[in-house]
């Protein structure tokens, strides 16, 4: 017992000097991981991944730092099955969600976020068919040639503009789902939403975005 402690202590001491951590020195003597090498190997990759989602260089740097520190703490649970990069990315993903959760929590909760009565006007009619699309507001043929429009920068500007008109929380949830490709269950858990709240917000975002794109982009063509 005394002896094994002494061995571990020796390992720890070398780690202090080299910055390396040996994964379970007895059974896996060859698994040496050097956290400082992560910075050169994966630093830029993680940074870019974060910057796309967080839209801010300094926040992205902070999140990468948090990720690497968290990685050191959970290094013993790293089985070596996934590649280092995949493993680090999955930690980064959680850190990004954490960050998003904090920033969304700061936006005061607004009942109106989950209120879709504003969408009723799309289905108001004077005749017996109320509940069906209103003639003036129903989707009309966009005449879209999908590839052509998507290549235009202008299109994305309009899209962004439409996004910014949504309430912050609704837009945030929609972006997490559609841009970051998170599962609905992940989002609900991270943001403490019920499934029906999530769904209502997505529906609201889709209806508003579609309408907004229709009147601001497709009308012009």
């Amino acid at each position, binding site marked *: 017992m005394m002896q094994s*402690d002494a061995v*571990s*202590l020796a*390992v*720890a*001491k070398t*780690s*202090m*000097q080299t*910055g*390396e*951590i040996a994964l379970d020195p007895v059974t896996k003597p060859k698994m040496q991981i050097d*956290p*400082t090498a992560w*910075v050169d190997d994966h*630093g*830029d990759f993680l*940074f*870019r991944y974060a910057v*796309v989602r967080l839209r801010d260089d300094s926040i992205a*740097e902070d999140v*990468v*730092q948090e990720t*690497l*520190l968290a990685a*050191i*703490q959970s290094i*013993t649970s790293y089985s070596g099955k996934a590649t280092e990069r995949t493993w680090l990315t999955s930690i980064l993903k959680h850190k990004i969600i954490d960050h998003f959760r904090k920033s969304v929590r700061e936006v005061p909760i607004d009942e109106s976020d989950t209120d879709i009565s504003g969408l009723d006007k*799309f*289905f108001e009619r004077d005749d017996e*068919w109320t*509940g*069906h*699309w209103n003639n003036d507001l*129903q*989707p*009309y*043929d*966009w005449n*879209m040639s*999908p590839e052509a429009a*998507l290549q235009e920068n202008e*299109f*994305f500007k309009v*899209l962004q503009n439409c996004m910014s008109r949504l309430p912050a929380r609704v837009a945030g949830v929609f*972006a997490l*789902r*559609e*841009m*970051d490709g998170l599962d*609905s269950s992940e989002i609900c858990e991270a943001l403490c939403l019920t499934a029906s709240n999530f*769904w209502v917000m*997505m*529906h609201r975002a*889709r*209806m508003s*975005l*579609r309408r907004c*794109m*229709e009147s601001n982009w497709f009308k012009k063509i």
Partner: protein
Amino acid sequence: MNIVFRKMQRIFNVAVWRYLPPCKEIVKTLSTSLDRKLTIRERVVTKLHLWACLPCVRYLEQSKYIEDAMHEYEESRAAEVQSKGLSEEARERLKDLLKTSAGLFALFSVF
């Protein structure tokens, strides 16, 4: 023949509009269908409705189109930041930090 066919289609459409849930409900289901798999009942009802209702078909198409556009946008932004990387200063700072905390962690994990 053509006239008979059109007549039948008209009857079908009216029946769908009258006896199945209205567009307002269908549109909600369509939104959901982009996030989760629908139940069999939901699928049948939506399918029938879509046969009879052009605006709802368009709604679904256009929502999917916007979804694709969002993915596309995301990719184009990812391409934009390809040239970016950690600054030298951040790189050094991170390395120092990692070295210290890796050592500390190893030391603590002994006890």
